């Protein structure tokens, strides 16, 4: 996301651009007070033994040692990795494929697009409940297929610890792919028609044109899509709570749920803060270099 036009407006002095600075006060306050301040507060208290109320009785790295020795946290991390990996790939692939299909001058584009997009209007709580209901072994898909005559058919992901995370993935993809499709579609619409003409003249096939020419041209679109998908993955919480509540057992636990559970149910704020600090650290490790390249690194004279 370059912004070459603005290069000529180089600021100088405190009072140049004063209106812009005043107008940015809410943003600056949000960034500094809420995001930086709130984060610092959380990190600080992660080194304490705070229980129900935040208190500054420091215990060093105890909370972190305990965190990494807890099975539930390790399972949560593993689930997030599996969910994140597949969610990232499938959302991009499905989103792009749907957009490409819709972009082929089809009839009824509006209808199809609306159907693919409407799940995004529903909250994760609703998504989780709807899919819990559809995947219910006694009432949903499994039961229906069995009643059609295939007696041995088994599809019960929400009650099988080994595959429960994929049951959640199905619901997550259903909810989230529509938005990515719209973004991809918008990106495809931004590509010059001459490209297609040139590709046709050169005799390059449709699929090949997409892979070799179109996708590389859509880099900024993919970046926006990645930011949206990734921020959603890290925060995944409501969907799990509504669909499985972490079960069966602790098989579908995720880090955000661990944080909430230890902050509020176990009343061990320190442990919850330590877990959320670990989540933040991983976000920052992934994000800072990227954000620097995208937004901050282009110093121009």
């Amino acid at each position, binding site marked *: 996301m370059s912004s070459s036009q603005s290069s000529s407006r180089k600021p100088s002095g405190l009072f140049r651009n004063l209106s812009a600075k005043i107008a940015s006060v809410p943003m600056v306050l949000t960034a500094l007070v809420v995001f930086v301040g709130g984060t610092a507060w959380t990190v600080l208290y992660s080194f304490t033994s705070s229980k129900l109320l935040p208190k500054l009785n420091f215990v060093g790295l105890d909370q972190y040692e*305990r965190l990494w020795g807890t099975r539930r946290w390790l399972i949560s991390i593993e689930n997030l990795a599996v969910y994140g990996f597949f969610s990232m790939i499938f959302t991009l692939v499905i989103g792009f494929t749907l957009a490409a299909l819709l972009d082929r001058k089809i009839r009824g584009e509006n209808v199809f697009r609306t159907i693919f997009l409407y799940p995004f209007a529903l909250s994760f709580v609703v998504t989780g409940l709807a899919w819990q209901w559809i995947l219910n072994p006694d009432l949903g898909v499994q039961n229906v297929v069995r009643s059609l005559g295939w007696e041995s058919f088994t599809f019960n992901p929400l009650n099988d*610890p080994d595959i429960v995370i994929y049951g959640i993935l199905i619901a997550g993809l259903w909810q989230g792919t529509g938005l990515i499709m719209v973004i991809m579609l918008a990106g495809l619409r931004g590509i010059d028609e001459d490209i297609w003409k040139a590709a046709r003249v050169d005799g390059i096939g449709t699929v090949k044109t997409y892979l070799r020419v179109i996708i590389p041209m859509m880099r900024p679109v993919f970046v926006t899509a990645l930011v949206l998908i990734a921020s959603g993955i890290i925060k995944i919480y409501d969907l799990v709570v509504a669909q499985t509540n972490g079960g069966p057992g602790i098989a579908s636990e995720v880090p955000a749920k661990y944080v909430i559970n230890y902050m509020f149910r176990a009343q061990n704020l320190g442990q919850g803060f330590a877990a959320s600090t670990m989540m933040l650290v991983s976000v920052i490790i992934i994000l800072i270099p990227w954000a620097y390249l995208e937004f901050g690194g282009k110093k121009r004279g």
Partner: protein
Amino acid sequence: MRKFSKLMASAALCTASMAHAGELEVTHWWTSGGEAAAVAEFAEAFDATGNTWVDGAIAGSGGTARPIIISRILGGDPMGATQLNHGRQAEELIEAGLMTDLTELAEAEGWKDLVNPSSLLDACTFEGRIYCVPVNIHSAQWIWLSHGAFEKAGLPVPANWNEFVAAAPKLEEAGITPLAMGQQGWQQNLAFGTLTLAIAGVDAWRKVSVERDVDTAKGPEYAAVFEAVAKARELARDSNVQDWNLATNLVITDQAGGQIMGDWAQGEFQMAGQVAGEDYTCLPGLGVNEILDTGGDAFYFPVIDDEATKEAQMALASTLIAPETQVAFNLKKGSLPVRGDIDLSAANDCMQKGLNILAAGNVLPSGDMNLTADTQTQIEDLMAEFWTSDMSAADGQARYADIIASAE
């Protein structure tokens, strides 16, 4: 910008003038049919004192409600009264001076002599002062058995856990899941706690849960407990429901032989039109060790600097524990009253069993009053994992002992 700060200023004024005399906002997480009917008894009794009950119900158990309650208190805009499980949960709020001291009222009304068992009031006491009103007693140590299921298998209804285990193969032959179990940590933990009392006995339980004695946790009594839990895990293999009431429903519909669950399960049987002793049997302490814990709910009153509100708080505290309210509330809730001096002849077979055990004094302090929520959560996580994996009994016991060793 100026508009915005004006907005903020006027909003601040708004919050400052919110408290109305005699109006008390009460937060709780009793939202199901039976629970709401029970709360309505409280509200009615409180309104009869000339005050107004403003209902602040939040569904989804204490896990959802607690952050809301704590945030409200920390945010300086507390509710007039709130449900909390008594015990160690509220200690820090009391220490921070955020909860109203009820000692004067308690002394004037003689709660010390009324409340039975006295451990309930102890749980409300912090450094000699009383900070909460216990309102009911719930116990977890019950197994609920389906007469229909055992009839189908051609067996008599078992009288205790050992007979139940012995009957399991026949149940399975008849296509019945022996033990219904919801796949959630707290339910699995509840079954563990109940089996502990039945199999290891009270003394071993006390050593571990109250005195945090690691050797006992590693010892033979607890080894037997973990063997029994592993056995129960086998019996519940085919039970793939999540919610506890859906598991209860398996028992009601004779698809499962029995379920280990707290006394609140009988609300489900009642709603399905089943009669205790005819359609189902309840065995306190799994029929082995007839002893119950005395968990339950209590109300706390955050400190609010307003005389009228304070008066309303005291009026509510007094109403909650009054004999008439106790009878009306507990009959609807299916729990036992906290007073030993009232007549509950309307109670059904299972409640009578509970009352008798209470009268005989076979009670334990609830785990809430012993282990911290933190430790309980760790045990719950362990149980959730144990029940859904093939972890061996010995491994489970070793990890349990580790948790006890690190408990505060």
